[in-house]
């Protein structure tokens, strides 16, 4: 979440409404929000922070299309190409309706797993990754607003004042030098 040689200010809240309020206030004052950490998805927060809608849906569609094509090509290869079965003298084209269930299932399978994998890649989540937390209770009942202290025209006092006015319980600072 944080990169090297950067300073962050964290406002800690105990209420989702205050987080949303302070994010809106800070943004209206021209302060960029680095990130927020919340125990549950606060709706409207990503819009307030200015996060664009994720394009994972496009990835999901592509994965689904690959699954669909794989199923069709494979079934055609098996049933029409490699070992055509003649059942009641019917032409091989007669098989197409019976390919639908497997095509459908593979489309879903590829969509689900493709999208799951893309999600983990995009969010850099991996098994056993050590979490980077501001407060242990940010996954329980506390909400954190993280603001990066940028060198130029950054009014730390103003940010602190806004956070307190919006109901922050605590304000913390942290520097990453590693």
């Amino acid at each position, binding site marked *: 979440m944080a990169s090297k040689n950067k300073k962050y200010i964290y406002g800690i809240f105990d209420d989702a409404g205050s987080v949303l309020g302070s994010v809106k206030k800070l943004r209206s004052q021209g302060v960029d929000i680095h990130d927020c950490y919340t125990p549950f998805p606060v709706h409207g927060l990503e819009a307030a922070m200015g996060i664009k809608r994720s394009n994972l849906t496009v990835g999901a569609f592509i994965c689904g299309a690959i699954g669909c094509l794989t199923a069709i090509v494979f079934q055609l290869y098996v049933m029409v190409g490699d070992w055509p079965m003649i059942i009641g003298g019917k032409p091989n084209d007669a*098989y197409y309706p019976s390919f639908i269930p497997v095509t459908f299932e593979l489309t879903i399978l590829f969509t689900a797993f493709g999208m799951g994998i893309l999600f983990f890649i995009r969010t850099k989540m991996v098994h056993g990754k050590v979490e980077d937390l501001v407060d242990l*209770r940010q996954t329980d009942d506390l909400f954190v607003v993280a603001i990066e202290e940028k060198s130029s025209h950054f009014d730390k006092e103003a940010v602190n004042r806004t956070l307190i006015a919006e109901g922050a319980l605590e304000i913390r600072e942290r520097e990453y030098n590693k």
Partner: protein
Amino acid sequence: MSYESPIREPLVTGGKTAGDVTADICRPLEGKTTKLWWLGFGLAVICLCILVYTLAISSFRGLGMWGINKTVGWAWDITNFVFWVGIGHAGTLISAILLLFRQKWRMSINRSAEAMTIFAVMCAAIFPLFHMGRVWIGPIWALPLPNALGSLWVNFNSPLLWDVFAISTYFSVSLLFWYLGMIPDLATIRDRATTPIRKFMYRFFSMGWNGSARTWARYEVVSLILAGISTPLVLSVHTIVSMDFATSVIPGWHTTIFPPYFVAGAIFSGFGMVLTLLIIARKVLKLESYITIGHLDAMCRVILLTGSMVGLAYITEFFIAWYSGVEYERYAFLNRMAGPYWWAYWSMMTCNVISPQLFWVKSWRRNPNFIFFMSIIVNIGMWFERFVIIVTSLHRDYLPSSWVMYSPTPTEIGIFIGTFGLFFTFFFLFARFLPVINMAEVKSILPHKPHADSHEEVHTPQ
């Protein structure tokens, strides 16, 4: 005349805060193992041992250990397969379809219902797998079989093969959905962990989750798409299960009503099982504030709806058998009703058609003891439905000289009891080590503190 809609009951009672939610739901998995847990787990493991034993003798001595014969080739095995797959359907219905319908009451029951789905599908898979006979060469059959003319593939025209794809896709997608939904909660437990082993295990599975708003935004998109694709998936699975029967030429199976009828039946039986489990779990794990009487009421309404659909399907099937004028079809249905298996048919009719109608009475829908009893009745009824469809359609086939009766052998009964062992072993482990309620989602439906100068309403997730 005007109708004033009543104010909805709160979904979480007792004025809980987000912190209370975490504490209440983590309590069973952070406290000491109770004697009751050991008792239940022990019983489940004993049944699991029965499963291992009966499956071993079915494999070593062959399917002669089962009561199936030349005429009745499918019997308890496929009955139990359909029974377990059906039970699994409630989990996906709750987590996917109710998510799309924006039903917030699903939030405190979806986790355990999804767990139930996964364990039930595992139980289901055992039956067709062992019905193949030589189960150890099962994986080889999936590969092209070399012979004199080239290599012989599986037959994609066969509904049995579609079923393999449907069930395995269903199992793996459900598992992914369940796991993905659990990651934020695993992180919560990780951050409360006091011992290094717990910390390590929950850290491993929570994948570095820290509740970042950017991750949540993507996570919400993924959940929505997964729900969107799981909805047709869950409908397709029992549709394809029904095609195992409906695409055949057996009177009593060869009907186009099967797909919707099976799906309704699956949801009906699934909710029966969810109620059986949750009525006990809410009591034992002290979760009455989260799984309220209102939740039970809502589930009873689903049972009432799907039970009525199933009843309608039975009657339609009967009518069409008569209306079709097909002699064999007519006989198959008369034989169901008044033949040697009449008791199975009437058990099915009583349990599935008459009994869910009792849920029209509101006070009965809100009585946990009554619901618990009824949920067992529903499960018995749905088991009989599959037995009736499979065995009574087969045992008197086109050729009267091959008419037989079927009865299960101790091995088959053992396998069935054993699958309950497998199911409950996993369920007890789940209740001990994983959060049984989706904490993150439940926190999002708690009432928020009003914010002084923000007039924007805080939107809760769907």
